């Protein structure tokens, strides 16, 4: 009696795809087995729906757990990047007295040398036949488009040089760039260098030595530095700077020949405003009044310039490395914060689905009990 009643209930609502009905039917299945021959064609499609649903709850739970774990990791990476940005900023601040004094001295010597015709190896502009590109990339990924952007810039520059009919060679700095250029053997690479966690004068010195010897031995006639300029925490920009030949006026020109005056040095500074990290850029116009007018040059001014320009070269490279690192960390920070946001949204959606299914299952079980009790009456 009860058995026939239940089968009737099932066959009366075969078209319903409601979850409660499905789980209800799954429990009913063993009862149905003896009389299944007649209704087998009707139940098979619904049965295939049952199995993913039954596992669905467990699957959903594992998915929610894995999303939770991922969120934890991205959150931690974001915090680490934030802390490192602050350290990168400290490094810039520590280098400030040096670069400030250097710019000051260079500026003054240039004033005095303005009339002279200086001839220093590092400033000699030769007709360009070969160009060296120093490409600064990061050591690790998971930082959005940071590495791609700079490598794309390098590729674009290489294509440009090719159309101009110029020879080129690449000095790659950073692991990401190294793997990129190693996979492309048709791009001539002069040297692979490792970036290191915090750029110091040693790293800058290695790059400077390399470019210096390349330039002085006349193997290349121009050295360009490709790095990511730190504009703000959410914006960075891959740029090209001409490193050598150094203009004797202490100016560096970008690729369009627009001069960036070294005396007008910019420093970036991170500050907290209303609890959020912000960036301040301040241009430092160096004072030159305290420089003694009766200053004597121990050596020939040209020799002094010769000693100063490598220092200037080094500090330029160091600054580029520091800016690249700061950009990388900022990029990682925003990428990771996006990832955390996405994870929390995914978690929310999954939890909603999970709760709905769980509720549906409970409703189904209650229905089953009620139906059973009704049948017994």
């Amino acid at each position, binding site marked *: 009696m009860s058995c026939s009643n239940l089968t009737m209930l099932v066959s009366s609502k075969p078209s319903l795809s409601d979850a409660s009905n499905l789980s209800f039917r799954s429990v009913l299945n063993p009862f149905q087995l003896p009389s299944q021959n007649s209704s087998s064609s009707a139940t098979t499609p619904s049965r295939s729906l049952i199995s993913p649903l039954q596992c669905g709850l467990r699957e959903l739970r594992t998915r929610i757990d894995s999303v939770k774990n991922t969120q934890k990791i991205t959150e931690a990476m974001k915090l680490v990047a934030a802390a490192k940005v602050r350290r990168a900023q400290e*490094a810039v601040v*520590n*280098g400030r*007295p*040096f*670069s400030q*004094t*250097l710019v000051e*001295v260079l500026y003054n*010597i240039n004033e005095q040398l303005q009339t002279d015709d200086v001839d220093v190896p590092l400033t000699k502009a030769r007709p360009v036949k070969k160009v060296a590109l120093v490409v600064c990339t990061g050591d690790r990924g998971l930082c959005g488009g940071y590495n791609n952007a700079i490598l794309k810039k390098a590729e674009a520059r290489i294509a440009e040089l090719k159309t101009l009919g110029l020879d080129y060679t690449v000095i790659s700095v950073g692991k990401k760039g190294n793997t990129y250029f190693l996979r492309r053997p048709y791009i001539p690479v002069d040297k692979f260098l490792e970036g290191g966690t915090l750029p*110091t*004068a*040693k790293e*800058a*010195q290695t790059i400077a*030595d*390399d470019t*210096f*010897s*390349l330039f*002085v*031995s006349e*193997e290349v006639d121009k050295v360009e530095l490709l790095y990511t300029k730190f504009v703000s925490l959410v914006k960075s920009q891959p740029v090209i700077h001409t490193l050598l030949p150094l203009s004797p006026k202490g100016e560096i020109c970008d690729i369009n020949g627009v001069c960036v005056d070294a005396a007008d040095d910019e420093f970036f500074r991170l500050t907290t405003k209303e609890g959020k990290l912000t960036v301040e850029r301040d241009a430092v116009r160096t004072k030159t009044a305290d420089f*003694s007018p*009766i*200053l*004597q*040059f*121990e*050596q020939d001014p040209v*020799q*002094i310039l*010769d*000693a*100063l320009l*490598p*220092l200037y070269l*080094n*500090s330029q490279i*160091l600054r580029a490395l520091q800016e690249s690192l700061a950009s990388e960390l900022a990029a990682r920070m925003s990428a990771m914060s996006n990832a955390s946001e996405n994870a929390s949204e995914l978690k929310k959606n999954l939890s909603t689905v999970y709760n709905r299914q769980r509720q549906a299952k409970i409703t189904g079980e209650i229905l089953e009990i009620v139906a059973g009790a009704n049948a017994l009456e």
Partner: protein
Amino acid sequence: MTLNLCVLTPNRIVWDSEVKEIILCTNSGQIGVLPNHAPIATAVDIGILRIRRNDQWLTMALMGGFARIGNNEITILVNDAEKGSDIDPQEAQQTLEIAEANLSKAEGKRKTIEANLALRRARTRVEAINIIA
């Protein structure tokens, strides 16, 4: 009259305090600087800086740069500076040997320039230790 010395490298301030006298390696030879020195600007060679502080001599290895003296203020800008007491003698000696070997192996103009620079740096570091001893 006091003399103030400030040694700067791109990433830190190595020395910033009062001294009695210094001996500096310039491109045109060594010069000694006492208080009230005439204002000069000079290129600093890869070499040793000797500092006198109350009858005590300290040495520092300088990796080439620039110095400005005037108004009892000495500002030295160098690529790298290491105090003699901070250098590991064994490591410095090894570096020197490697640099010497590299120079003898170097071929071509570019390699020779590089090797020569490295050798001079290594030699200076070794000298900075030996003066103390």
